[in-house]
């Protein structure tokens, strides 16, 4: 299947286009006729089950894999050109940090590869609490610290497109939040393709979703436009529990299925009429979950 979708912004000249891309590994086709283009600075969350082809998509866009057919272009230029590569940052799901170097040396190594400068290295050392680690060998770092160093390299040099394959996987919540904030700030004027298995994170930071299933583009949409197949509302109460059906209780919440969000005020009024004091109301179903169904 090939789905032609184009989202554009009046203000941005950036365009990343996948045109009928089929790609894979030495003859084994993983991506099949994927077509989309992105122009608007935002976070595009790339979702799909394991083995769907998300990492292959990132590798193809990054120019690591050459498409069997079709093309990946940045502003009309093939992504294989060095000038196109110089507009991309790629962060794979493995750390990609060379052994045998201290943190500072590793960042200088990355800077050399990216044609960044010594000053960029000093600036990035101040990010993500890396400065205290600068003299330590990579092998001495914890998994979370390694991930921070790995992520720091995408801030060495400003580029237009960021391909981030599970950047917050295996991070403690504090660092994950910090990194999400940095990426959110980036996305104000950059295009970020962000793969994640965390659907709540995806919904929280993504503006668009690109769903890949069995190597094909299954969906490209604004996340705000997605509706879950069942609209579930969770209500946490401080008083009046006896008026609520026990069968609806799921942990701390009483769950109600409604036809849509427009019915929420009516439900609230009904509950308050029964003497229920409401502490919190939240949507229980994530529309992105349906993409894995």
């Amino acid at each position, binding site marked *: 299947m090939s789905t032609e979708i184009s989202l554009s912004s009046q203000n941005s000249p950036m365009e990343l286009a996948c045109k009928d891309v089929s790609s894979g590994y030495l003859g084994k086709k993983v991506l099949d006729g994927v077509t989309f283009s992105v122009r608007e600075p935002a976070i595009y969350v790339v979702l799909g089950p394991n083995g769907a082809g998300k990492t292959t998509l990132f590798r193809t866009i990054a120019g*690591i894999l050459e498409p069997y057919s079709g093309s990946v272009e940045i502003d009309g230029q093939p992504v294989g050109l*060095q000038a196109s*590569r110089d507009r991309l940052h790629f962060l794979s799901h493995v750390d990609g*940090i*060379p052994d045998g170097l201290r943190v500072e040396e590793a960042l200088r190594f990355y800077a*050399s590869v*990216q*044609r960044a400068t010594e000053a960029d290295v000093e600036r990035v050392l101040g990010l993500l609490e890396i400065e205290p680690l600068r003299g330590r060998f990579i092998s001495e770092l914890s998994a979370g610290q390694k991930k921070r160093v790995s992520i720091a390299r995408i801030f060495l040099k400003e580029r237009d497109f960021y391909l981030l394959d599970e950047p917050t996987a295996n991070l403690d919540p504090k660092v994950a939040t910090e990194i999400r904030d940095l990426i959110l700030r980036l996305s104000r004027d950059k295009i970020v393709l962000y793969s994640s298995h965390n659907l709540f994170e995806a919904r929280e930071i993504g503006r668009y979703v690109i769903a890949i299933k069995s190597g094909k583009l299954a969906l490209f949409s604004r996340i705000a436009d997605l509706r879950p197949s069942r609209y579930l509302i969770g209500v946490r109460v401080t008083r009046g529990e006896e008026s609520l059906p026990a069968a609806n209780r799921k942990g701390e919440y009483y769950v109600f299925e409604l036809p849509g969000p427009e019915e929420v005020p009516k439900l609230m009024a009904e509950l308050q009429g029964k003497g229920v004091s409401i502490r919190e109301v939240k949507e229980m179903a994530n529309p992105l979950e349906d993409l894995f169904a």
Partner: protein
Amino acid sequence: MAGVEPRDARLPNITATTFKRGVLAGRLYLIIGTVVSLILTFSLLRSAHGSTVFATTFPLEIPLFASLGAMGGLMVFVSDRSKGVLEYLIAYGIKPSRLFANALLVTIGLSTIVMGLALAVGLGGYVASGNTISTDMADSILGYTIPMTYASSLFAAISGMVWSTLSTPRVGVNSPVGVTPMLGVAPPMVVLVLAESFDKAYYYYVTAGAAAAFLVLVAVLLFASTRLMGRERFLSPM
């Protein structure tokens, strides 16, 4: 279209960084290769006076220890592959062939260290103990020791890299890094077997020919190996 940006000259060169890492990663092999070859050199020197043992044996031992001492190049390659460094470098425009070539350059550098030290100590000690370097011995060093050192080291390294590229990462003695030192023995073994089949007059043609054949094989594997980069197993080691 924007041109390619220049590199900040104060930042390290990728090949130089790889060499430094190769020395660090393979330091134990480098130390063992150097020390064992020097121990053997000293023991041969003790019997050198008035004997042909040193002149005939010394040039033969160096390639074996040099290929052992040069393991750092392969070790960096295997480590970078399993940690996703190679994938990262390709994404930023480094050609796959350069990644293999960098590891081979490290191998050449490390084997030169082992061979250079052994030759300096061995020949220096030999001359210092009142001997002269014969034409046969010089021919042996130029026709066998030097080409075989590079042929053995490079053949072992490229075989290990190709094997690592084709296989799931593993550690221990049953891994490319564990087995590759044995592969360094192949070129000298081929020479020894062939030398028996030819007249002594052709000995140097056999050694030079074998070394050249292995170096051509290294070049062919280097050329072919860049195509292997597209394998999922290579790019998804974890």
